[in-house]
């Protein structure tokens, strides 16, 4: 359920109705208020006033939280689209700045709730939405901020949603029971030494998020001039493409820690090269 979310998480939550959106976000906002998180709610399909009323109707003390500076409900045009277009490359810096402001004000964490309906209007720049979602994992994986990204299934096709889902470490899909849902994967990154910790299950539903974090880790390690580590002691990898990437990149960029015997076996299977055919044995 949405109440299990923690700082560091980055969720693709697919919704089918406005009521579902308000129900899920009311729970997320209430939970954040209780944990002394600052909450930034970027809405699009609903007006900010409608979100405020909807949350209020579901028991969230909206006026009080807004007055205290703990809750900001704003239109996406003042958030993602402040420059009139979506600049995927600039967004991680925007979120990092929002995080710095929140931290400076003494809040225990930052919760971003984003209604991604604006992307369905095909604004300039939105074609790289999956790239943005993959790249922004870096900010959340530091463990102070978290994001709940709302994707309305009435606005996006399954083919459009597939790469977007895979750019998040976890997705709440249409078939999942809301009460039983748990995040599939948590990713946390630390700078010194460069270390990526993965907890949960990796598969095709989150492989792009993992790939982006592995790339980020490699960049961090190169910049620091030190070796990087990927901690897999609490992770299970059910994705051949990710294992292949670990084999391919790991040889030169990072060291695996705590891999399971099964993963060791699969890496060995995938790692052997055949000199005449160019493939693993």
């Amino acid at each position, binding site marked *: 359920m949405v109440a299990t979310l923690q700082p560091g998480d980055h969720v693709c939550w697919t919704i089918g109705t406005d009521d579902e959106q308000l129900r899920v976000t009311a729970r997320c906002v209430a939970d954040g208020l209780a944990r002394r998180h600052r909450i930034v709610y970027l809405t699009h399909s609903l007006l900010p006033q409608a979100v405020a009323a909807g949350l209020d109707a579901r028991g969230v003390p909206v006026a009080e939280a807004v007055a205290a500076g703990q809750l900001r409900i704003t239109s996406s045009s003042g958030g993602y689209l402040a420059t009139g277009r979506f600049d995927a490359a600039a967004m991680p810096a925007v979120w990092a700045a929002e995080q710095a402001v929140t931290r400076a004000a003494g809040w225990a964490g930052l919760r971003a709730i984003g209604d991604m309906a604006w992307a369905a209007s095909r604004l300039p720049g939105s074609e790289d939405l999956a790239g943005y979602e993959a790249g922004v994992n870096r900010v959340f994986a530091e463990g102070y901020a978290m994001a709940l990204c709302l994707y309305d299934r009435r606005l996006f096709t399954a083919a459009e949603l*597939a790469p977007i889902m895979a750019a998040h470490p976890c997705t709440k899909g*249409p078939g999942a029971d809301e009460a039983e849902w748990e995040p599939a994967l948590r990713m946390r990154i630390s700078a010194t030494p460069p270390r990526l910790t993965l907890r949960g*299950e990796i598969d095709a539903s989150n492989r792009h998020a993992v790939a982006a974090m592995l790339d980020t880790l490699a960049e961090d390690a190169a910049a620091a001039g030190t070796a990087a580590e990927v901690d897999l002691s609490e992770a299970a990898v059910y*994705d051949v*493409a990710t294992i292949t990437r670990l084999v391919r990149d790991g040889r030169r960029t990072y060291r695996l820690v705590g891999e399971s015997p*099964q993963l060791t076996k699969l890496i060995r299977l995938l790692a052997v*090269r055949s000199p*005449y055919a160019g493939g693993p*044995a």
Partner: protein
Amino acid sequence: MTGTGLCHEALLYDSDTAYCDAVLPFLRDGLADGDALVAAVRTDHTALLRDALGADAAQVMFIDREEWYRRPAVTIAGWRGLLAQAQARGHGRARIVGEVVFGGVDRHRSWTRYESAVNALFADAPAWIVCPYDTRVLPDQVVADAHRTHPVVRDPDRRDSTGYRPPAALLPELPEDPPPVTGPPAADLVLRDVSELGAIRRTVRAVASGWPDDPLDDLLLVATEIAINGLRHGSGQRHLRLWRADDTIVCEVSDDGPGPPDPLVGYGPPPDDSLGGRGLWLVRQLCDAMAISTTAGRTHVRVAMTAT
């Protein structure tokens, strides 16, 4: 024989003498040529060859064929590894004597497909493979298929096989027999998108209750890979079904698509640079059996694994 590509021959023999008359010169010439020598043969043939070769037998890698010929995809991977080792040791070519274990009738189709696939998968390999077929004990159909799967036959005269069919033509005519199931499935799920892969694994875990961790992890990976394969490459309504009988679990993903166009899918790995495309290859490595069939407009990818 010269050249760097594959030579793949069937040796049809009906006596120890005929066997030795063909295999011993093959190996001795290989020694003279500096080739790597490998023999995955019956235990009685290992003894015959060791006796006849004397000290030279130390130059031959003898392999227990019962261990070697368990799953076609694993055997193929094994040959790739051995050829890579041979090349690393400086051998320009490998000579291989490979006696496939055709076993019971349930294995004939899989291993005939293997014999055919070898021609495509190792087309560029610097290897000369002789596959002895004992015509006294092997069924007529298996021996007849040897003419279709080997470009060259010896019985004992060595000649091009007039019945040879390239794998691209033969494999579609010899579809793998799907692993059998009985009764209704223990689970039947509709697959919609990748966010359901975790739920699929929860269902697999429930059906595989009592399995040890090691085969269970393999099964979870296999189920995830064939599910994502169906979602990505299939069309229409996708179903995942599971059956359990004792310690054997059969997992099937079906869709409304035409199935993969490449009859060799999963037998050989894609090039090194590619991150994708290894899924079905790894599935074939891990499963006891895998079959892709298309009937009445639906494609079924079915695998079987047994907890051991």
